[in-house]
């Protein structure tokens, strides 16, 4: 628990209404969307401005109190689960869109802005903010920046880090720095902006962000291709890219995923084929039409049993909305749903899908796979029951095998969810010992007391594997 002196100082900063340490408040900020991680913080604090954040961090630094910055708690790597106690610092009192600059094509926002609110605000002006995590209706920009969220449009447009031009960050010692700015070009020193994006709240608290906007694509078309054979679908993904087409979205869903998603969303997803590709292209009408025609042909040549272009905007919208619900819909099948985020080079998709299925058989676990096939980012999702310890152990083994395979194929342990605490034991697989040491050096330089979201990204030496921990 916090000592009374620290508590009094924090209340002085934010007022008693914005500081909560009732057992109820501590419980509801003890988790995020990651299964099997829960840990009570000592308190929850809801600052309203940068100045309050500065004072809070100064106090925490002096008194050695861990701080966990948190948006809406939708992340899937236990990145915002306060596993070391301390204080959860929420963004939601800082939720203003400060400016949409149509001349420089930027938006300046506070971290608590809900992603969809920003998307709607910029689209009303004919502009486009492409990062679109499946949780965009709920997640905050601050959370997206901390985790470097991806989304369905990642293939053509990249992820959050590709749209952050500048940041205002309060460091662990209370100093406030500004990185980047409304600039198309800026090579002054180290690229701190990119360092902070995806740093999972371990280096500082983002209090403001300048985001890059682009003109909104003129049109969009959506296509659904069905395959009897999963391997054929995966090969088609590679074929599309090899034909030098970059669709905005190229999603892959296997049969069980389609079944549960359809059960929830009822948008006419087929449930009787083994693999579905959901493909979207946007841009000038003539380009979109040409690309969609060519994609249709490639799908047919790749043994698709059906290729269908969505008849209307509404139908297309319904399909991609349904896809966004895939993870949560899978939770209908079994009590515990553990989703992973293995990513491989696009050309290796078919090999990876095959390996995942073999691993599932080998460890006798149920794995459904969907994901952003176009950018090589797969979400093998294991359906299990946290109460079955024996099965959970096999799940852990299966995921470990999946990560090893991804690395072997030149991939990574996470494409868009971050490392958090869930994947901390695997970071060295990707980075090697020296890589991890370099990262730790940066962490130590900026946060010598280790108050910023401790326990995340870097595994404790004593525990190598913690996929699941209650």
């Amino acid at each position: 628990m916090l000592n009374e002196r620290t508590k009094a100082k924090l209340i002085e900063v934010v007022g008693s209404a914005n500081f909560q340490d009732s057992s109820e408040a501590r419980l509801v900020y003890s988790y995020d969307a990651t299964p099997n991680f829960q840990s009570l913080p000592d308190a929850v604090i809801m600052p309203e401005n940068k100045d309050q954040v500065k004072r809070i961090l100064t106090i925490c630094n002096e008194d050695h109190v861990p701080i966990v910055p948190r948006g809406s708690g939708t992340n899937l790597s236990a990145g915002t689960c306060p596993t070391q106690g301390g204080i959860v610092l929420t963004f939601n009192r800082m939720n203003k869109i400060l400016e949409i600059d149509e001349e420089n094509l930027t938006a300046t926002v506070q971290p608590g802005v809900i992603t969809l609110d920003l998307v709607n605000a910029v689209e009303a002006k004919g502009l486009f903010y492409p990062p679109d995590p499946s949780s965009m209706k709920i997640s905050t920009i601050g959370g997206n920046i901390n985790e470097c969220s991806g989304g369905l449009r990642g293939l053509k447009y990249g992820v959050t880090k590709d749209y952050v031009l500048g940041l205002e960050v309060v460091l662990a010692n209370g100093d406030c720095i500004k990185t980047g700015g409304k600039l198309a070009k800026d090579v002054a020193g180290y690229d701190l902006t990119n360092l902070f994006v995806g740093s999972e709240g371990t280096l500082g608290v983002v209090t403001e962000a300048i985001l890059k906007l682009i003109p909104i694509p003129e049109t969009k078309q959506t296509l659904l291709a069905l395959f009897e054979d999963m391997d054929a679908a995966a090969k088609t993904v590679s074929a599309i890219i090899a034909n030098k087409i970059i669709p905005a979205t190229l999603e892959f869903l296997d049969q069980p995923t389609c079944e549960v998603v359809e059960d929830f969303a009822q948008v006419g997803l087929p449930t009787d084929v083994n693999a579905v590709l959901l493909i979207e292209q946007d841009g000038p009408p003539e380009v979109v039409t040409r690309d969609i025609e060519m994609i249709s042909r490639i799908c047919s040549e790749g043994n698709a049993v059906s290729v269908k272009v969505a008849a209307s905007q509404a139908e297309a919208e319904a399909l991609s909305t349904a896809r966004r619900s895939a993870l949560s819909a899978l939770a209908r099948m079994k009590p515990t749903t553990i989703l992973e985020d293995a990513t491989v080079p696009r050309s290796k998709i078919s090999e990876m899908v095959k390996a995942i299925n073999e691993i599932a058989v080998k460890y006798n676990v149920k794995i459904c796979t969907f994901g952003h096939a176009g950018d090589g980012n797969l979400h093998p999702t294991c359906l299990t029951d946290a109460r079955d310890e024996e099965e959970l152990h096999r799940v852990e083994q299966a995921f470990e095998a999946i990560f090893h395979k991804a690395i072997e194929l030149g991939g990574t342990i996470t494409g868009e969810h971050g490392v958090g605490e869930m994947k901390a034991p695997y970071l060295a697989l990707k980075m090697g010992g020296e890589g991890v040491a370099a990262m730790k050096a940066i962490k130590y330089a900026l946060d010598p007391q280790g108050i910023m979201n401790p326990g995340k990204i870097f595994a404790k030496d004593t525990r190598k594997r913690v996929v699941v921990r209650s």
Partner: protein
Amino acid sequence: MTATKDIQQAFKERLDYDELMNCMRCGFCLPSCPTYGQTNQYEAASPRGRIALMKGVVDGLIEPDEAVEKQLNLCLGCRACEPVCPSGVKYGHLLEEARDIIQQKKRHKWPVKALRHMVFEQLFPHKERLKNVHSLLAFYQRSGLQKAVQKTNILNVLPGNLAQMEKTLPPVLTKKEMKKRPFLFEAEGTRERTVAFFTGCLMDTMFMETNNATIALLQKAGCKVVIPEVQTCCGALHAHGGEKDQAKKLAKQNIMAFESIQADDIVLNAGGCGALLVEYDHLLKEEPEWKERAAAFSAKVKDFSEILLQQQFVEKQKLSLPSQIITYQDSCHLRNVMKTSSAPRKLIQAINGTVFNEMENADHCCGSAGIYNLTEQEMSMQILDYKMEKVKEAHAHTIVTANPGCLIQMKLGVVREGVEESVRAVHLADLLLEAVESK
């Protein structure tokens, strides 16, 4: 055992642990929750938070203290979180069970006990008594007493919004007028369907004219309407207020009453009641001798708007009204539990001469929620004020609702805004009959 330990034990025994586990905390429910929105996105005031609290009690991580109880009470029970939940968590059932446990184990202070006893046991299950209350109200309104009282401003000493609420009361019928109504209404033209009408408590006393309008509409749509005499209160207030046993008793009474009539459908015009009626099978799931009968009953329950559409009412009748902008406030339970949201809108849009303007967040609860606007007045009014802003943005002259609680609440909203001259709140049935009659 202390009350806290007692509650904790009952949570462990009675809350469906699989259902608690089914919530995978994705947060997709958060934007749909009115109290989450109104509390500056405070997690404890969200469905995900409330499920976590319930599970926290079961897991022994927290005690079911007053803070936990407060968050469970603050929930409107609008169930807007259910249709948007990809995992399909039955939040409403969890909440109902948790509230029932807390109510049963809790030692209420005597005034609360007395009030609950009066409302749940003495008043609502007895329609005759409700009618008596209303004949008093009728006397109050017609004798000139209401005008006299309003002039004195004496009502301002009443707590909260009761003074404003008093102004929203519709002119009610006298007991004699209420008694006059027959129990059988033949269809106009050829009879295509026989429906049994569920009258409800408030709907059949304070809003009896709306019930009469509904019956008239059903007749015009070719339905023979039968009113089973021995039906009683639906039990929704009880079920949601933590009085499950009483709710079950009422449910059985209703099932028996409607079994005696071989109707095609059981029709009603109150979303709040309907939502419990369609879940009688869930309510009685642990009583084998009732389960099947309840399921047969529930399968027949439909909102009148669905029946009107099905019976091609809009094709049969020409509907028109003087020029006005109309907006529709969803009844949460009608939308989220009975799954009726497009039928009322289609009916309104069929009225010639009017414009339908959908207001933003029409599917968000108005804050009425049973007796929530009395028990959680502050939050209720905060939600209502937000709702009235949306009405204003839609430039609506007429707010249509489909449930008595919502109707009273929206009327209160009109009074609070002081726009009685330019805006009215009306039940869909009354509006439709008006549209038929004014042709």
